[in-house]
């Protein structure tokens, strides 16, 4: 018991002095569990997040756009891979994490349960959803767990490219035909509020926040990050000549921030609870990909085993 207390004190002191915790360092169980939950949830979001954008790859309106979108979705698969690997350093396997995703035990970002109805949604997702993700993720590059922090450095570099390509799509649409501009406004109308929800519940009702802040897994509160996102994005919407769908939105001279209207948390709770427009399809698609691929993974494993046997029998014969 005393030994555990010593370890805990050393751990807390280490974190307090801004040092990184590495995979083999001692850490409290709760810290490990929190990280596994957060990193795997993040990895799952990347993987499920491939679907709403993947939905438009075959219909992209030019070969250049097709190529950029395909590269972007492929980056997301890559982010999923680094993040699963970062989580594996904490003693869980990718199979266990995927199983939790497939059976609904693990969560992923609710934003991906909304449908992508038009090409403008590719712009809105890059601009708003990746923009919000960057706000959340840049501080994670300094999080206390080394493997996660390092994975995030790479993820954030690519995300900022994704955000720019999304904004570029919106810019082309806003400067385009009346139909294109309408498409852009419609996408902003549909993605604005779900993007604000990506920062999670208000600070007062966020259940994981306080401990994570103390452990330096989280560096800023949900509401702080949400405010930063609004302050950054509203001028960009003005530049695009689009209207943010919030009648209460106005610049507050006194605070130096935008005030914005209340978020409909009942919608958020519905989507988190599995009742969003695409929850069922997203998981069904993921599970189908996994199940349809089972014979392929089995074949690869069987072949690897045979090859190893052949190699060892050759060695022993020699």
């Amino acid at each position, binding site marked *: 018991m005393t030994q555990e207390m010593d370890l805990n004190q050393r751990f807390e002191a280490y974190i307090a002095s801004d040092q990184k915790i590495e995979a083999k360092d001692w850490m409290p169980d709760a810290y490990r569990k929190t990280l596994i939950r957060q990193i795997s949830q993040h990895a799952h979001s990347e*993987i499920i997040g*491939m*679907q709403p954008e*993947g939905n438009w*790859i*075959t*219909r*992209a*309106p*030019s*070969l*250049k*756009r*097709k*190529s950029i979108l*395909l*590269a972007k*979705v*492929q980056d997301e*698969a*890559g982010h*999923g*891979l680094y993040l*699963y690997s970062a989580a594996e350093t904490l003693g869980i396997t990718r199979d266990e994490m995927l199983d939790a995703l497939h059976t609904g035990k693990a969560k992923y970002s609710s934003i991906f349960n909304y449908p992508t109805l038009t*090409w403008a949604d590719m712009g809105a997702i890059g601009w708003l959803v990746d923009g919000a993700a960057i706000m959340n993720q840049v501080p994670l590059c300094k999080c206390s767990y080394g493997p996660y922090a390092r994975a995030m450095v790479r993820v954030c570099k690519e995300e900022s490219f994704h955000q720019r390509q999304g904004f570029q*799509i919106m810019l*082309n*649409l806003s400067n*385009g*035909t009346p*139909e*294109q501009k309408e498409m852009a406004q419609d996408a902003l109308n549909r993605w604005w509020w779900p993007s604000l929800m990506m920062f999670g519940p208000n600070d007062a009702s966020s259940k994981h926040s306080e401990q994570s802040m103390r452990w330096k897994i989280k560096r800023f509160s949900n509401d702080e990050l949400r405010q930063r996102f609004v302050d950054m994005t509203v001028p960009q919407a003005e530049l695009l000549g689009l209207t943010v769908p919030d009648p209460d939105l106005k610049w507050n001279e006194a605070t130096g921030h935008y005030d914005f209207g209340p978020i409909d948390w009942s919608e958020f709770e519905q989507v988190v609870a599995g009742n969003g427009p695409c929850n069922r399809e997203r998981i069904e*698609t993921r599970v*189908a*990909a996994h199940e*349809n*691929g*089972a*014979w*392929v*993974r*089995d*074949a*690869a494993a*069987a*072949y690897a085993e*045979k090859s190893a046997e052949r190699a060892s029998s050759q060695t022993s014969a020699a």
Partner: protein
Amino acid sequence: MADQQHEWILRLGDDALVLAQRLSEWCSHGPALEEDIALSNIALDLLGQARALLTLAGQREGQGRDEDALAYFRTDREFRNALLVELPNGHFGDTIVRQMLFDQFAVLRYEALASQTVDLELAAIAAKALKEVRYHAAHSAQWVVRLGDGTEESHQRVQESLNVLWPYTAELFEDDAVSQACAEAGVLPLNGSFTARWTEQVRAILDEATLTCPESTALLTGGRSGKHTEHLSYMLAEMQVIQRTYPGAEW
């Protein structure tokens, strides 16, 4: 000769574009994350080749058509790809066998194109593409071997894929007035000249994969003159929908 060149380059470009489109359908449906990434990568390479080739075809044609005009505003009767690359993806084994059969051909064709000095623009595109398709060929051959020599189920599945796809391979080696004109100009040898090396390499892969090379002599052909399978028109309907719905818009 100028007309024939344009026609010839379209064939190369359409092979790459149509196969890229098929492979991109795999995105987020792959059997493992690593393979999802690999198939997207191959699709991206092929798409890059298609863009360079269609741009060049448009320039040689001299009617002001760019890559997008050629990709989005031709009908299926105007596409010049081989039938093999437009076939639906099927399961992963179908996709990978189709890829292996095509990759082995693409390597030979790009090797020849990269080493000729008659058309230097085409040679430059081919030299870049060759590095990519050599990697694709290694990837698809490894998977054919893994699946062929994997489990009993995987063996049966890919043998069936091979039996179904084999009759589409002969089209790759057909020659006509267009390919003869290109051969005479020294841009590319006749397609038929690749048959022996292709067959030898494919047989070596199939042997290692413990698969049986089909004996079929059926010849399913028509793509080079725009007589496609029923599948292509659906693929194009999906690919071209936005451009055709909003003609003249910039994206």
